């Protein structure tokens, strides 16, 4: 089973990297960009665990390592 985990900054947390990317996009002529927030995607091969077990494991992975829940949110996609 393949999982995708998305880790993004919580709203309200300052994201200077996202802001710098937004400024660069504006400088390249993309006028429509109002704001940019950057984050991470993890693609994880989970073997043949059933979906509920995999989801539990992925949730624990996020809480313990993949995300810092002080400043980051995460979401899990299985498929």
């Amino acid at each position, binding site marked *: 089973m393949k999982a995708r985990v998305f880790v993004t900054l919580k709203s309200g*947390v*300052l994201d*200077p*990297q996202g802001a*710098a990317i937004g400024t660069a996009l504006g400088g390249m002529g993309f006028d429509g960009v109002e704001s940019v927030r950057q984050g991470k995607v993890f693609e994880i091969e989970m073997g043949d665990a059933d979906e509920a077990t995999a989801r539990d494991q992925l949730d624990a992975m996020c809480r*313990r*390592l*993949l995300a*810092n829940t*002080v*400043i980051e949110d995460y979401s899990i996609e299985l498929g």
Partner: protein
Amino acid sequence: MKTAVIVFPGSNCDRDMAVALREATGQAPAMIWHKDSRLPEGLDLIAVPGGFSFGDYLRCGAIAAQSPIMREVVAFAEKGGHVLGVCNGFQVLIETGLLPGVLMRNATLKFVCRDVQLRVDEAQSAFTRGYAAGQEIVLPVAHHDGCYVADDATLKQLEDDQRIAFRYRDAVNGSMNDIAGILSTNRRVLGMMPHPERAVDAKVLGTDGLPMFRTLADSMVTA
């Protein structure tokens, strides 16, 4: 006083830390590899040094915090042991949960490597007793991810409990409340971005870090 320095792949201030501890205590610290799962008996202080552990992959300090030895370091701190984390060591201590908040990419997005003016905000700890509260000192910084961020409740708690050991005098990296170093609730764990271990020799970068190591050594001899 018996000390140890934890060494991760990518640590690069471990030897400077060892020199500072040897100078202050007269005894070389034990150098502990991150894969070890036991600490030497009878330690008084563990130092988690600066560097780029595990290449700063994922988040600075995040992978080092999961090293086998860090479980022992956390247990040591929870039993009341003294732990000093400098720069990447501060990031590692935050990732273990021993200290609150988070260290994010500098607000300027630039790596900052220079001497900075600091104010010793809190002299009531084994680490800072050698300074006067309010004293200004100069220590070098060298980091890309030193912007201290915490939620309002955590910041208020740190301020109310007088656990902000050091503040930058001028903005360095965007840290909230100009925080450069914080203490744990029992005041026995200190994490700081500036490098006291690089300022212990008058011939190199000054001696403003020396009082920290001297008073640590003194307080643990008498304790």
